[in-house]
């Protein structure tokens, strides 16, 4: 037991641990904020898992093909937005089941990315690599100076989205459309336009979340590299009660545990098979959902398709 506490102390006292926490949190922040935008507008976007795959692949392929790193991020965002547009057409335009449409998009985006990868690299065994974002060693703060610029972007994004949601007319429209679309329509706000916009923007962020993995955290594209991170983001949004600030906190808390399990796993004196440590993130997400379930105040119109002129 003392051993365990001792090694825990070693882990937490090490700056590289906190560097890892922020790095693990970054794609979760992008993804969670993306889901949050969609859900605040009343739409569950289960396309996230696949959109992250597509973002990771498209961003990486752009850089591999000679584009700059930021061009890669931009392309990832655009690809995300394109899948968002498809999602919006299905769930807003046609008012189809958000569950099934989202899963369909995840399957489609994943399959297209893998297909594209195999078409581009038919016969490679070791995945080709790119030069990823370099750490911002000029940054005057410890821990942050080991991060890459997209992490900074993620941290700036959170207050920006909070401002957008709570301080601007468009943010009010997004919230209203997620609470009571009839009311929004009656005030002259187009529900279809606002929801579509929110889904497209949110999906673009999901694409960026994916690109972080191939352009910052790693330097190549692997199959199964998203590995449920998208679903975890969906759980985190519920945990965060649909508030951007809490979403940031949730992502950091979650990354803290994920980094911790990685360290414990590597520390050698692990008592359990390593798989049990890897389960932790998924198990924690479920626990988080149970913890907040009783007091969660969902956006009132979440998952309720809105057809104009129908009550």
């Amino acid at each position, binding site marked *: 037991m003392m051993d365990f506490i001792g090694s825990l102390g070693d882990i937490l006292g090490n700056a590289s641990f906190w560097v890892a926490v922020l790095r693990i949190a970054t794609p979760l922040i992008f993804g969670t904020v993306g889901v949050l935008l969609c859900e605040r507008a009343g739409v569950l976007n289960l396309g996230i898992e696949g959109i992250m795959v597509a973002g990771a692949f498209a961003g990486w392929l752009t850089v591999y093909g000679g584009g700059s790193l930021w061009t890669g991020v931009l392309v990832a965002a655009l690809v995300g937005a394109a899948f968002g547009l498809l999602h919006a057409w299905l769930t807003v335009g046609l008012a189809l089941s958000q569950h099934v449409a989202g899963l369909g998009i995840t*399957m*489609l985006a994943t399959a297209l990315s893998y297909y594209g990868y195999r078409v581009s690299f038919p016969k490679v065994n070791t995945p080709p690599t790119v030069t990823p974002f370099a750490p911002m060693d000029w940054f005057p703060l410890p821990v942050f100076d080991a991060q890459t610029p997209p992490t900074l972007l993620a941290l700036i994004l959170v207050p920006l989205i909070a401002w957008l949601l709570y301080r601007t007319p468009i943010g009010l429209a997004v919230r209203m459309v997620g609470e009571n679309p009839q009311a929004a329509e009656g005030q002259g706000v187009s529900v279809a336009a606002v929801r579509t916009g929110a889904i497209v923007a949110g999906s673009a962020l999901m694409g960026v979340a994916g690109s972080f993995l191939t352009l910052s955290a790693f330097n190549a594209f692997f199959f199964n590299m998203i590995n449920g991170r998208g679903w975890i983001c969906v759980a985190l949004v519920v945990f965060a009660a649909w508030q951007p600030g809490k979403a940031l906190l949730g992502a950091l808390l979650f990354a803290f545990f994920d980094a911790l399990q990685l360290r414990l796993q590597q520390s050698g004196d692990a008592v359990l098979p390593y798989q049990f440590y890897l389960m932790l993130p*998924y198990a924690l997400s479920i626990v988080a959902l149970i913890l907040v379930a009783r007091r969660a105040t969902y956006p009132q119109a979440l998952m309720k398709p809105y057809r104009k002129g129908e009550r």
Partner: protein
Amino acid sequence: MRLEKRNESSALVLIAAPFAAVAFTLSVAALLVLWAGAPVGRTYSLLLQGGFGSVFAWSETLTRATPLILSGLAATVAFKARLFNIGAEGQLYAGALAAIAVGGLHGGTGLEWSPWILFPLMIVAAALAGAALLLGPALMKQKLGVDEVVTTLLFNFIVLLFVGAMLDGPMKDPTAMGWPQSVALNGELELGKLIEGTRVHSGLLFAAFLAVAMWALFRFTTLGFRIRAVGANARAAAFAGIPVTGTVVMVALLSGGLAGVAGAIEVAGRTGYVTLDMSPGYGYSGIVIAMLAGLHPIGVLLASIFVAGVLVGADSMSRAIGVPTYIADVIVATSLLSVLVATLLTQYRVRWK
């Protein structure tokens, strides 16, 4: 763009919708074939031959269809009650593990009972394992309002890691030279082949029987009625005296059980042991199959054969012409989305003003 509800949709339109959707899908996928630099006509004809062009092709397709029928039924019964069970993949693996636990030679129960007792026991254990896995999310949905899609998805990852741990540990096959695979199933429990020299096994008949049984359940029994009523309108069902939570729990047991049985049948009919790649996403494909079938158990049979044919055909086509096998996944995913749209258009009319 507005949607206007149709008053009646003719049976013809209802049956034509999935076919139109598949036709649309194939033309979309043709663009991807062109991207890969292959001739579209030849690719599709190779795909078709590989899936359905010979006895061997049919035998492979039907082998592949067997677990798909079961996971398709699992999704069908769950979706009918609006319990969105996306965890069939995990439940399938749980069922496979349970099958080995009961019927494995060493590292399982090691029971030397007659296969006449052991086989049913193995199936029941697999069904219970799958059912138990879905029970939690179903209860969390009913009692706490936790969305079951996210929980069942997350459980898939947990189960797969658990399977990994078991294959490294208690169920490890010591003779597999470090390859992650479980001990083998007792040979007496393996299912017989339907056609000598192929892999089609009697599990196919069992799956087909379950499809007919599910159809009868929905159509003729009070439980089937309750499931349909709860799925269509839970509030009205509760008012009429249908126990909603009880029905959802029953659905969870059925759905998880079917997925678990899919795992056991795969082990007993095809692999003989559990590996981490024994299911290339059968659980997820089950969702597509259920939607393609319009949640009709008999339709599930046809949709499973279609999806299995595409997967098998793509494998053989890819070996011949080099178009990546992932084309099959694109076709399956696109079919799902286009069937959704096509079904909607049977119920609604699009007005462009």
